[in-house]
């Protein structure tokens, strides 16, 4: 590891000041489960590391009823998972969080870090895309709020400027009649990065008609993506296994995976189909059960 200065500011203002002063040379540290590896492997050589865990706003975890969840960027996944209202209102987020890394990793890792690291395979991204999450960003010019969809710009690239940071993710509470499912395919049960991950969130009306559909995919494009054509095939239709199959195939077509050491593009595309179909099927089954 290269030597660097370490700071642990207690306020957002102080953090922004440090970022501005460091110009390009600062790195933010949340749980460090991505950053520390990058530091050790010299993939990043910051002169300053700013630990953001002591900033109160970044540790906020609060569900404002009817509106949504304020998920501070530095909150650990285990804390998120312990939050009593999570499984009730945001089951697909809970399903994603609980499958990330391992118990030890989850006690350090944050949702903010997961999103800011911007891996195309980030476990929490597809669910948050389905939930229409927003990124609350602070910078020298104040705060701004963007849709998570617009946050990811490429592999390890986000809409954050050099002098900005993610304060929280705001997750609007989905309709009580919505049903969701998150699935990921890994070679190992734990300690693995998804070869493909898929989240679906359906709002179903009477007679199984789909009022709104969200389908998001990970690890199969330069960023986590929404499968819009699949969504369009589902919305406004009565869902049956044929509709689901067609949507799954559309999702596979919308993906643009690559070959890498974890899986081939061909396999990934096929698995998008399998996982999307299974996730949608599970939503339907859940909707059907009392």
């Amino acid at each position, binding site marked *: *590891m*290269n*030597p660097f200065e370490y700071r642990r500011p207690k306020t957002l203002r102080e953090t922004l000041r440090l970022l501005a002063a460091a110009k390009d040379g600062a790195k933010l540290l949340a749980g460090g489960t991505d950053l520390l590896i990058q530091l050790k*492997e010299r993939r990043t050589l910051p002169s300053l590391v700013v630990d953001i865990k002591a900033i109160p706003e970044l540790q906020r975890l609060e569900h404002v009823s009817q509106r949504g969840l304020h998920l501070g960027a530095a909150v650990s996944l285990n804390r998120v998972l312990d939050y009593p209202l999570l499984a009730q209102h945001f089951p697909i987020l809970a399903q994603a969080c609980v499958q990330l890394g*391992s118990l030890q990793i989850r006690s350090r890792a944050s949702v903010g870090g997961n999103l800011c690291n911007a891996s195309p395979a980030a476990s929490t991204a597809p669910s948050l895309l389905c939930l229409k999450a927003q990124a609350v960003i602070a910078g020298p010019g104040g705060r701004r709020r963007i849709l998570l969809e617009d946050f990811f710009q490429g592999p390890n690239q986000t809409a954050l400027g050099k002098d900005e940071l993610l304060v929280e993710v705001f997750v609007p509470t989905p309709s009580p009649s919505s049903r969701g499912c998150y699935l990921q*395919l890994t*070679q*190992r*049960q*734990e*300690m*693995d*990065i998804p*070869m493909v991950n898929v989240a679906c969130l359906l709002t179903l009306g009477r007679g199984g008609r789909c009022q709104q559909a969200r389908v998001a995919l990970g690890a199969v494009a330069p960023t986590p993506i929404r499968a819009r054509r699949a969504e369009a095939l589902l919305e406004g239709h009565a869902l049956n296994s044929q509709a689901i199959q067609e949507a799954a195939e559309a999702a596979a077509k919308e993906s643009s995976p690559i070959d890498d*050491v*974890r*899986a*081939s593009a061909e*396999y990934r595309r*096929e*698995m998008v189909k*399998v996982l999307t179909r299974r996730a949608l099927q599970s939503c339907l089954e859940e909707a059907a059960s009392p």
Partner: protein
Amino acid sequence: MSKPKVVGQRVPRVDVPDKVTGRAIFAADVAISNALASAVLRSPHAHAKIRRLDVSRARTAEGVAAVITGQDLLQAQGLTMEEARRLRPALRQHYLAWDKVIYAGQAVAVVAATTQEAAQKALGLIQVDYELLPSVTDVETAMKPGAPALHPNLAVRISAKVEVSDNVVMRTEIRKGDVAAGFAQADIVLEETFRTQMVHQGYMEPHAVTASVAADGKITVWTTTQGSFSIRQGISQTLNIPDSQLRVIPTEVGGGFGAKAFTLIEPLCVLLAQKAGRPVKMVMSREEEFIAATPAPPVVYRLKMGATRDGRITAAEGTAIFDAGAFAGEMAPSAMDSLALYKVPNLSLEHFQVVTNKPPVGAYRAPNHPQGAFASESMLDMIAQSLSLDPLELRLRNAVQDGDATPDGVPLGRIGFKETLQRIREHPIWREKPKAGRSRGLACGVWTPAALTSTAQLQVTPDGSFALTMGSVDITGVRTTMAQIVAEEFGLDMKEVAVTTGDTDTAGYADVSGGSRTTRTTGTAVLRACQDVKAQLRERAAAQLRVSIEDLEYGDKKFWANGSPKTSVSIEAIAGKAVFGRGDVIVGHGQCSRLGREPAYAVHVAEISVDRETGQVQVERYVAAQDVGFALNPTLVEGQLQGSAVQGIGWALSEGYVYRNGILQNPNFLDYRMLTAADLPPIEPVLVEVAAPDGPYGARGVGEPPIIPPLAAVANAVSRAIGIRITSLPMTSEAVWRALKARGQA
């Protein structure tokens, strides 16, 4: 022997409290106050000539105390470049490149500096001009005439039936009977080619060494190793240092599985310490462990077998190609050994060893046997399927038994193969039908430990306690089992026995701990040391009691004359006399370097399910049965069976080096996937005890056999589940999906 009280018991490991509380001192914990840190420059290319290597700027960089290159090593070895070139193919270890690099990751220069950062920084100042050469990482391509040659002037004559390239560095052959006649008698003849990948031993603790040179030149080395004497030999031979000038102190070992049996970075550390005039510490990173240690060889194994309709094997013929990596190594005739489970009247096996631009391979638990058994045990399953025979019955029909000759003609002594098969036959996993959606696979394995040499020294201390010193390194609980033996022999409490692994200056010689030999050979040496001490004590007791030795009785740490238990003399009284010049100290010695050939057999059953859409394999249940002879400590023995099975299942399902253009793509534990507790069911051990006449209390070697069957056991289960024979490992979900897709079933 009366009923044992300490051996055979589940005695807790003596080393564990320190390990689980972080107190144990591993090699990387050794901290000499003025020691230098170090960093290694490694080749980024799979195959290249070194046109120019300039370390002058690094030598003068801030904080740098010494830089060594291949030239320095040759100088220390007293070799010229020309001699070195001639010797190269025969070198098993190749610590630093000199005129060319033969695999990506090969060490080119090593820097010692005051801090890790300074050493790292200095690496950036080293200039190397490489002239790239074509490389080859695939053994079948490497073998073909015209393939890029790794060691062009290699003078090894290979009389193969086919034309091969110079990369073939060794060929051996085993023949027995008349194969053509054997196949003619067969009702079915099957042939298949099986492939395994290069895998890593996966030890938790990376290599770490500290070397310090005293004012008189005497060198002390602290290292993580399976055998301190092996390290001493490796260093002394490489650097021409007499044994008397070298002391190797083994630290606690965080796993080795064969990869810590021989020197890897120790000679470099010593040479750096000599050059720098200060102690030097070297610690490998996980990535270095993957790219530059000694993984296990991949094997391509074509095997043909014939059998009669009632399931009797009539002949086997095969060719096994071992990928040795960058240098020629030793080659265990694994193909023969995996067929040695059965009576095969007609046999013809050819082994090739081929070099490729990959790290040199080394030992990994039961070296080369899992790969061989993957082929032969898969083939037996195929025969069982074609003949609609129960795979366990097929094995019982062909299993070798006491007195049968092995392929090399030595008759077997008392063995427990059939007993182990029978235990599985009675086990619920075989007796009961699998649940819907699950399939089972069975496979067997055998390992015959070599004895090698061990010594032990046992002292009785003035208060009547016992102190055992041995040269054997404790990798599996050896200190615990050896203390159990002493406690058993003298009727002691475990607390009354101190047990230490000495270093090369303080302990008697011992070969490496490995190959399932340690409990047997060191255990026998310890038993002999106990006998020696007993004889000395009895002599002393007889003199004190004024009776003849034959009339002595022993119990509760006391001797008395036959029939008069009231007048006794205690061990404490005898030992207490033997200090301050009042008498001779009681020190017993024992050694062992020869034991009978006593193979140990393992029979495993894997029960799995397959997700036919994703190809994902889930191991649902796993039973590992083994003839262990006598379990000196059942908990430790079961641990060997379980750990081995997990390694073998990982080899079957998810582990494997992935190369692209000569570069390893997955040199980390994220993308080199060893299985974790979350992936596996509890591994159920079944201990069978058919005593080995020569083993201590009948013990057989236990560490190697259980890694042999899992590859085939899992593959047989998967093949039965999907109805397609899997012949290549690992069976990742994508690989299984591809197999299904090729049949139009995914």
